[in-house]
């Protein structure tokens, strides 16, 4: 058994709790406990609050890091934004003693201190490095045969690659490999590595720009014959799920590509019940996908 501090962020618990429960269930299947981080706040979002005031962004991120330090366990995240903020903040603070001192002067006001004792991980890393895909494959009870998956990596899991250290950001394979280990086919589509369009405060301030980017990605996936879109990021998940509803309202098109979080897809392949994994709590129906799985 191993324990991780489950950093929920905003979108996972407050919009797509299916991501939260599916992640807990799948991790438990492999002996990993995702523990509550009591009193954690918004990470805060790297391209939003980081764009407004980096000093505030870093101080608030460090408070979240300290919650896990006090639990003495590494952090696991289900959103690329949360991962970006916490991983980057941890990286900056570990490498710059003067910065750490300044942040600790702020944290002292709430009786906390950043020590630099933990690591920040993405849920994909738990699956790829700790559990390992061959062990995932062994536990598959319901192989997702004939299911064509369009994986969307999102940006901040991989980039900036110098800080994230997950290898190539141009031709990543980890998510494709994971999908294959579940028995599904991971398809190629145009602009596979492109951004969903939501980050950097663009979704909140320029929804039409954000949706135009989402549409370009969705069109590529649909042209390539995808049965569903799979993401490892709660914010990309929201952008594509809610975004299709918004696109349908604004453009009169009929986007209906099911959007599935990676641990929801894994849970399904492991034999778990779709309803209990939150498959019916999206804005866009997942029925067309579920019908393909015996």
């Amino acid at each position, binding site marked *: 058994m191993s324990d991780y501090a489950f950093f*929920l962020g*905003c979108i996972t*618990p*407050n*919009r797509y*709790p*299916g991501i*939260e*429960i599916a992640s807990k269930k799948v991790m438990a299947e492999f002996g990993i406990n995702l523990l509550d*981080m*009591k*009193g*954690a*706040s*918004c990470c*805060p*979002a*790297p*391209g*939003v*609050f*980081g*764009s*407004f*005031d*980096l*000093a*505030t962004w870093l*101080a*608030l991120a460090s*408070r979240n890091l300290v919650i896990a330090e006090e639990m003495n366990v590494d952090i696991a995240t289900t959103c690329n934004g949360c991962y970006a903020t916490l991983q980057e903040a941890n990286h900056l603070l570990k*490498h*710059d003693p003067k*910065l750490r001192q300044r942040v600790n002067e*702020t*944290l002292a*006001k*709430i009786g*906390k201190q950043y020590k630099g004792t933990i690591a920040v991980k993405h849920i994909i890393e738990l699956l790829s490095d700790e559990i390992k895909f061959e062990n995932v494959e062994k536990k598959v009870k319901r192989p997702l045969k004939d299911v064509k998956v369009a994986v969307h990596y999102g*940006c*901040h899991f991989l*980039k*900036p*690659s110098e800080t994230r250290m997950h290898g190539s*950001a*141009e031709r990543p394979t980890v998510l494709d490999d994971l999908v294959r280990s579940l028995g599904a086919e991971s398809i190629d589509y145009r602009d596979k590595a*492109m*951004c969903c*369009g*939501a*980050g950097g*405060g*663009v979704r*909140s*301030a*320029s929804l039409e*720009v954000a949706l135009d980017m989402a549409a370009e990605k969705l069109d590529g996936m649909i042209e390539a014959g995808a049965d569903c879109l799979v993401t490892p990021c709660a914010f990309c998940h929201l952008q594509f799920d809610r975004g299709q509803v918004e696109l349908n309202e604004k453009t009169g098109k009929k986007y209906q590509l099911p959007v599935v979080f990676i641990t929801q897809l894994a849970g399904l392949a492991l034999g778990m019940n779709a309803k*209990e994994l*939150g498959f019916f*709590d999206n804005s866009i129906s997942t029925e067309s996908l579920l019908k393909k799985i015996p």
Partner: protein
Amino acid sequence: MKKQTIQKLDKDFVNDVIDLGSKIFPKEDMNTLRACLQCGTCTGSCPSGRRTAWRIRQIFLKTLNGLREEALSSEDLWNCTTCYTCQERCPRKVKSTDIVRVLRNLAVKEGRMRPEHVKVCEIFFKHGHAVPVNDDVKAIRKRLGLSELPPTVHMYPDAMKEVLVIVDEKGFRALVDRKGS
């Protein structure tokens, strides 16, 4: 047609950007801005630039040449999704996306914050989440066997107080309260 005028040049602008960024990022990373050769790999890689007037190469040219007003008043500065594709591909290793965040920080300091972003901050000051829970999601959480409120600041009011202590210590609420332009 609006008359085009050349703005006053501010030679300190690039130094201001590098100095502000260096309060968080390593100084050598911020100094990479000076290495920009205007090759345009960044703009050529930019998914936002395909559909908006956002030109990251141009904003760096303006920054290097002291066009403070033009650089910081551009609404397009807010069309970067921070996808980092430009930063990954820059042949001069300019930390372009990080520098965009610093330029936006300067814009905010000068009172140029989008009203939608002011709203996001106000939601955060109230809830500690940029996207707080609502009644529909509470019901879904319950049905999925989760606690109705997540174990975050939503469940722990004292934790929310800590968040606001930090926000005020950094002067962030005062910064946002200026409401932007």
